[in-house]
């Protein structure tokens, strides 16, 4: 169960469908750097429901073939430069969705059923570009009008960062339970944790309800400050100066390359 960040990155094969959390949840930037360092290719990222800096960096580094998400957002930091550049260059296949449809697709996978009905969406152009969404009817009430059904989303891997994990693979995520849904729906869940908890997280009644049980988790690596330069809920905020420096550099090909050289390829730069 316990392993290294590099090993987690090695266990995400090229072409894998990888579920990622938004920047305000748990993002394993330490593993993102390791993925870029190992030259990962053709990843299919699934933002649950959006991606931020980790998506922008992986796209810029050429690791991503497809992005499925409701949005790419850097919040107050503005547009995502490498995402926008990749779209402009036609280098990224974007599967545009909407937040509740992504949650619903994962919920279908969680329950082992093929699809899930979702409210709304009827009349949105999103629908016309999705072959994994369709319109059906309520079988119990034909008068209820059209309802959209979305196919189950079954990621190969969920990659997250959490405040606590123990040596049994139990991972404490508190109220950030989109990560619970992601773990339930995915074949494998790989985790970096801020701290390794000395004991069994499921044995503490206060912690157990916010804990992903180890049965869903196949690898845990300790990574203090593992969400850096993005923040981690309840622990630390984003590294504002660093993120602004990233945005400045990521506007150009050379600038982005210099960022990767300094913080990804240079050994131990982030630690």
């Amino acid at each position, binding site marked *: 169960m316990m392993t290294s960040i590099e090993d987690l990155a090695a266990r995400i094969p090229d072409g894998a469908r990888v579920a990622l959390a*938004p920047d305000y949840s748990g993002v394993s930037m330490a593993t993102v750097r390791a993925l870029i360092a190992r030259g990962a290719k053709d990843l299919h990222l699934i933002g649950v429901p959006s991606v931020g800096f980790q998506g922008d960096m992986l796209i810029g580094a050429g690791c991503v073939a497809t992005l499925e998400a409701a949005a790419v957002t850097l919040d107050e930091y503005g547009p995502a430069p490498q995402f926008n550049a990749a779209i402009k260059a036609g280098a990224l296949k974007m599967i545009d969705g*909407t937040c509740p449809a992504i949650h619903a697709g994962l919920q279908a996978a969680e329950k082992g059923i093929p699809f899930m009905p979702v409210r709304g969406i009827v009349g949105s152009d999103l629908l016309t570009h999705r072959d994994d969404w369709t319109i059906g009817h309520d079988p119990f009430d034909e008068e209820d009008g059209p309802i959209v059904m979305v196919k189950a989303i079954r990621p190969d891997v969920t990659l997250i960062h959490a405040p606590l994990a123990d040596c049994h693979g139990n991972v404490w995520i508190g109220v950030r339970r989109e990560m619970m849904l992601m773990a339930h729906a995915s074949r494998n869940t790989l985790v970096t944790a801020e701290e390794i908890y000395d004991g069994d997280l499921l044995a503490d009644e206060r912690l157990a309800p916010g804990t992903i049980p180890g049965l869903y988790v196949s690898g845990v690596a300790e990574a203090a400050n593992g969400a850096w330069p993005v923040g981690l809920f309840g622990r630390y905020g984003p590294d504002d100066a660093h993120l602004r420096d990233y945005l400045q550099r990521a506007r150009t090909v050379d600038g982005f390359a210099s960022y990767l050289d300094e913080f990804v390829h240079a050994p131990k730069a982030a630690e």
Partner: protein
Amino acid sequence: MSTDFAPEELLIATVADMLTGLGHVAVGAQSPIPGTAALLARARSGGGLRVSMLGSETHSPFTDGGRELFDCAAQGRIDAFFLGGGQIDGQANINLVGIGDYPETKVRFPGSFGSAYLYFLVPRVILFREEHTARVLVPKVDFVSAPGVSEENTYRKGGPHALVTGRCVFDFDDAAKRFRLQSIHPGHTVDEVREHTGFNFDMPDDVPETPAPDASTLALLRGDVAEAVTERYPAFAAKVFGTVNAA
């Protein structure tokens, strides 16, 4: 009447007035002005208004992850929400995806977020876009992230209530499926609004001025409310109120 206020403060106060009497307002991504307006309305509500702000650690009541907001909305537990748009058209369709012939967009926007769902389910959706230009307010959006109106047989509990921009306020006439100019912000004119709006809209013979925030509103806004919004939108709060995030 000579109280000075920032343009953002007028917009915040205007949006806050639209939330009076409601029970639960949710705020989505990238919404600093609507978010601040919701916190102002909450501060004035005497405990009657609950605000749920996505991405906030201190102003979110949710314990079941990202899906809970959407589940709440589908059950009718959310009274108002805010949506924006890279493009917004005269039928209140919004485009959060991009300009051009999708998927080959010339300009890419962040994405649709929860708009394609919440626009149908939250009774009072307030459209907010500070930039009021003909490139934003267009005759017809290039991509419909979420439609302003739906066919008769569509399950739809909510939709556009108003559109607030940096120049004016429109309300939305459900029957006519058109915007109607409701008020113009101080220092702006009807001609200017017409020039910078790409769609046709209705208007009364006399268009009133958007009321300026009074002294007590400004005091509340610059005090407790500014402090409260700093956790979620530190850059915005620093710019408008000069507050610094304690975290």
